[in-house]
């Protein structure tokens, strides 16, 4: 409903000529720009742009999940590890991921490695923190119940704490995916030769606001779809959870 209202207002405002099409391109122009993009924009097809953004997001994100989740779990389970890593996590956390971009360029150049690094940094925090809290907040009565049933320490971790924390770990992974996506777009705004951030920035540089708008809409749709797919998987993997 709200989406329809915004679309209607957009169409109305641009059609009656209240704002210049340069400041806010009319829907028709954006559709036309979308067509141009689909046919290939700035020497790259849509698939190339998609691949450029998604490959970086996925590699950075998967690395963050593979390191962040186990590290968070271990920090919650083994107290000395928490003491060791907590100050580091707390200090690095307030740095917004895009602020790492200049450093990443300095270290890795303007290629994919630098962007993957920034995506990794952005995604690891939610993975780690949610995994940590998920294990810390395993209800003590479940631990007591499992111990009285004869659970060893290993069984407590793998068969009680981790499954108990899985819903929260999963929501951390979902948040991380959103953060990773937002971060790659930001990184592409700064340095890129393809990808959706690059499309938005090119639109801006070439005074083509319709291209800019298409880029933004594409970013929104892809982010929305990723979230949707993730939720579907989550529901499948965690059938006991309280899904709305």
């Amino acid at each position, binding site marked *: 409903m709200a989406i329809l209202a915004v679309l209607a207002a957009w169409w109305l405002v641009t059609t009656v000529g209240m704002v210049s099409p340069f400041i806010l391109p009319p829907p028709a122009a954006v559709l036309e720009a979308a067509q141009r993009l689909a046919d290939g924009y700035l020497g790259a097809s849509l698939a190339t742009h998609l691949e450029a953004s998604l490959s970086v997001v996925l590699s950075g994100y998967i690395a963050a999940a593979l390191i962040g989740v186990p590290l968070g779990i271990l920090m919650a389970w083994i107290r000395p590890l928490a003491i060791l890593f907590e100050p580091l996590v707390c200090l690095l956390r307030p740095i917004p991921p895009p602020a790492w971009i200049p450093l990443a360029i300095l270290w890795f150049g303007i290629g994919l490695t630098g962007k993957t690094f920034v995506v990794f940094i952005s995604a690891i925090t939610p993975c780690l923190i949610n995994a940590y809290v998920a294990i810390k907040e395993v209800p003590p009565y479940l631990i*007591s*119940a*499992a111990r*009285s*049933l004869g659970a060893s320490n290993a069984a407590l971790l793998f068969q009680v704490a981790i499954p108990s924390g*899985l819903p929260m770990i999963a929501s951390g992974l979902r948040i991380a995916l959103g953060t990773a996506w937002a971060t790659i777009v930001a990184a592409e705004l700064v340095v890129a030769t393809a990808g959706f951030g690059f499309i938005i920035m090119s639109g801006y540089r070439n005074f083509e606001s319709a291209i800019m708008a298409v880029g933004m809409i594409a970013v929104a749709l892809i982010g929305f779809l990723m979230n949707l797919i993730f939720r579907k998987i989550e529901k499948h993997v965690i059938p*006991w959870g*309280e899904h709305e």
Partner: protein
Amino acid sequence: MVAAIGGSGSRPMDFNQSVASNSVRYEDVSMLFPGNRGAPPTLAIDRFSLDVAESEFLVIVGPSGCGKSTILAMSGGLATPTTGKVFLGRELITQPGPNKAIVFQNFSLFPWKTVVDNIEFGLRLNHVAAEERRHRIDYYLPVIGLKGFEKHYPRQLSGGMQQRVAIARALVLRPRLLLMDEPFAALDAQNRTVMQEELVRVWSEHKPTVIFVTHSVEEAVFLADRIVVMTRRPGRIKEVIDVRETAGAQHWRARPLDQVMRHNDFQDLRARVWGLIRDEIVIE
């Protein structure tokens, strides 16, 4: 089976020779909780000594904070007394384990496990063979009235059903000692009555020794062989009442609760136990 009850004056050696394997002995058990932030420590249990016979159904009642649940935790190996010892048969209780199964007030089911997986978990942890696991589960599912709910998750069940799963999860291990910490307190009155009767039925099959903690005097009188009334903190034994003396040859629990409730002896005993507890309640 004859249950040997070691007298409180018996020497350790005599005790070791005459002890029945599923009896429980509390030897001068005290529990001191350290105070937080400079507060003085709290003595929760003060020299609790008691012998519980094999297959006895012992119910502990007392005012809030009298240490009932602490006694249960120590019996289950989840807490260690500051001084004194708790024995199950000849074995000094030092850690939790499947021979002393616990049923908790909040059910404590594993939300990610189905009914069957919850019941099976303890068996798996203790490496019971697959065939035996299936055999025991097939036995208990109809007993607890949950046939057809095997694949349900706990959140899909009512409170009464959840607690039946928790009881089955404990009984399926064939524990020597069954510890129940206000297991029916979270249930409504109707469910509670039904569950008390069902517990008696299920328990009668193998008769593990039971230590049952409750706030409900009626529940205590109905279920118990003996009732231990505790004082307010620091928890001591105020009185031990043998219900079998008033219930006659048959236990109260062998009859439906609504019939038993109309019995004068039942009501008298209930009034007596309640009187003992009321004296211990201080309004602060």
